[in-house]
């Protein structure tokens, strides 16, 4: 009768490891550390981009922005003869509504999976974004058209179609956990773990892979390309951490997920900030967030003023796995 219980673990075991649950995240971290009035900064990617530029944080270049339905027609003009670009809702969540175009064939635009789109398809997508289809609560939205990121060659074979991005959880300016999200055929080029992307836990000290999971289970090779995921090492790791850490000063938010991509020419770039970062990163790292967050809370009680360098130094030393 209680056979179904074997699918459940005990809450005490979870607490012992320090796994963060959704309620604890909302109640103890997001709510007290993320002031509500700062949310628009991260929920609206256009605003994120503006303050990022102001604070000298590298972001992907903006081709254009469409705010109203009557401007949809100017889209073709806006992209000119670019063959690759990315269409995004300014207030989308969870990667919804992002359309990546990687090439053209005649009148058609190509998605990363070689699917062909007409200009009408793209304009319809833009209309949908403007009408609020992908935004929280269906609010009217803006459309960002950005330059496509050319990801670093070191990631060749690690990602199927999409851009592999590095998610760093930053608490009060301390990087606390990081992972790389690799899109797969199952995830349709998207980087969300629950859609089937592979999550690779990264050592905070070195940027080297700790382990990799897909759909909650450990994997060793990328399911589509077969590359050994344990060989993964993010280059420019120090710069990645610095970029992530400086997002705290930039946004004022205490508990954020920073999504960083590595462009082969421009290095680490901030893709977006997330004021409600998910919990799956713990599975990718096989570690709980809570002990690290508590350690930082305790540390800050004694010494509230630390520079970016000091914070990174602390995180690398205490949360890293490899020397």
């Amino acid at each position: 009768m209680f056979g179904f219980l074997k699918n459940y673990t005990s809450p005490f075991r979870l607490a012992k490891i320090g796994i963060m649950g959704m309620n604890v995240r909302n109640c103890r971290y997001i709510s007290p550390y993320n002031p509500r009035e700062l949310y628009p900064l991260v929920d609206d990617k256009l605003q994120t981009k503006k303050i990022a530029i102001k604070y000298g944080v590298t972001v992907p270049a903006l081709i254009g922005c469409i705010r109203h339905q009557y401007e949809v027609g100017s889209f073709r003009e806006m992209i000119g003869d670019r063959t690759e670009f990315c269409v995004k809702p300014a207030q989308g969540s969870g990667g919804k509504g992002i359309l990546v175009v990687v090439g053209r064939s005649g009148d058609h635009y190509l998605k990363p999976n070689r699917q062909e789109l007409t200009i009408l398809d793209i304009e319809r997508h833009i209309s949908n974004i403007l009408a609020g289809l992908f935004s929280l609560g269906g609010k009217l939205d803006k459309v960002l058209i950005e330059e496509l990121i050319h990801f670093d060659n070191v990631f060749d074979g690690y990602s199927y179609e999409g851009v592999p991005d590095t998610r760093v959880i930053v608490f009060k300016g301390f990087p606390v956990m990081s992972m790389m999200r690799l899109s797969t055929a199952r995830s349709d080029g998207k980087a969300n773990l629950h859609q089937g992307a592979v999550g690779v836990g990264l050592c905070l000290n070195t940027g080297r892979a700790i382990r990799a999971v897909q759909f909650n289970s450990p994997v060793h090779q990328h399911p589509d390309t077969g590359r050994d995921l344990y060989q993964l090492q993010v280059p420019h790791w120090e710069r990645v951490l610095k970029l992530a850490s400086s997002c705290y000063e930039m946004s004022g938010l205490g508990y954020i997920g920073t999504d960083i991509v590595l462009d082969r020419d421009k290095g680490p770039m901030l893709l977006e900030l997330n004021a409600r970062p998910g919990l799956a990163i713990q599975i990718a790292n096989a570690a709980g967030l809570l002990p690290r967050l508590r350690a930082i809370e305790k540390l800050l009680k004694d010494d509230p003023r630390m520079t970016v360098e000091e914070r990174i130094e602390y995180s690398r030393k205490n949360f890293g796995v490899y020397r």
Partner: protein
Amino acid sequence: MMSRTSYYLIIAILFLLGVALMIYRNVFFEVPLMPSETREIWSVEAKIKFTAAKEEAPVKLSFAVPRNQKGFTILSETPSSPGYGVNFTEERNQGRAVYATRNATGAQELFYTVNIMKDPMAKDQAVTVPKIRFSDDQDVAAQARNAIIASAQSRSADTATLVTEIFKIVDSKDQNANLLLKDTAKSALLTELLLRAQIPARVVNVLYLKDKRRRQELNDCVQFFDGDRYYLLDPETGDIGHPEDVLLWEYNSTPLIDLTGGHNAQVLFSMAKKPVPVKNALSEKFKDTGLINFSLDLLPLEEQAIFRDILLLPVGVLVVVFLRIVVGLKTSGTFMPVLIAMAFMKTHLLVGVVGLLLIVSIGLIMRFYLSRLNLLLVARISTVIIAVIGIIVFLTVITFQFGITEGMKITFFPMIILSWTIERMSILWEEEGAKQVFVQGGGSLLVAILAYLAMSSLIVQHLTFNFLGLQFIIGALVLLLGNYSGYRLTELKRFKPLVDEMQAEQVAGKNNDSRDA
């Protein structure tokens, strides 16, 4: 830290306030905690007939009427008497209706109707303990009485057995009893004997309540007291106790009818019983009390019906809050399931679920076609709303044609909410596949069904409507859940493989360590 303290303080205050309000309603207004209780209400009509003594002469008639007493609460009384003015008075603690007119001629008929509720918690305001009084004559009758008492006392231990023994002797028609019964009625004799035995007693006039009886008369009965409590002794059978269906009509040894200006007064009773929901009965009982009665019963019936629904919403909301925060179910639209559950309340579960699934699936098919037309969002949703209305009309007419009247009830579904649900599900389908649609759709349906089950419980409906205090308690619970930082049930499943893996690694690590050592 201050805010935490005030947070818990507010929860505690809300909770205690809710409990106190519920107790207040329960104790002072006697609203029961469980539904489906009914109370018996007896409608008794007394018809008084008499002949006026002279022509066109004043007549005054004083008629003893019952008052609140053990087991009964008087809800309302109406004298009806063409040409008479009526007053209610109290005389020696006995309620009386006084009818008076200036010119009465010939046969007269007066009526008095009283509605009485059988009420185990009635307040006894009618009964007083009579004083012990008897004559000191030393005649033959006195000797006979003393003999009976002495004989009874020798065979009894307490008041109850003494009364029984006295009755036995009187009833056995022995020499002494026969002598006394020659010029005294049995009930009067019993009363006198009891008084002499130092037991307060009196003759009262009682009405045996029997449903749908007409032309009944009052019966004599001996009321005797043991301490504060009184018992009735039936002078015919000798039964002692307090039968449920006996109403004390005249209870202070006053005349039943006191008539001046007429003669041949006669009174006959007819009565009928009707079970009434306890609420209605009680609202009459407390109609005129000075207690603060903040009750929805005071509203017109139509508004009552509206509040009956509205006050159930917090229960559904509590279910949703619990299922989302503690269990961690995913629903499409936070409170959409509650609205669906409200619709289920009108349609009943099976019809509701079938209707909902039909509407949503037909709507989804239409929506897939719409998605090819490249419409703007607002226009598309509006189209879906119109389509949903069309589906509802179609289904209603079709089911009606087949003679299934339940089909008509699907009009209760919130159409705009349904249209948004269809829109969201359709997008979910396009973006994340059919599986997520079934997970979220199934989650919403499950939450809706659970909320429906909670809200359709008669006990819950009774409590939410009659005890506004419950709303405070629900508020306190919702506030408390807002601070729940424990794991969700779904997370225990989600992180199960991780925990198992980490423990296996730990064990493996230890084994390696021991090997190294």
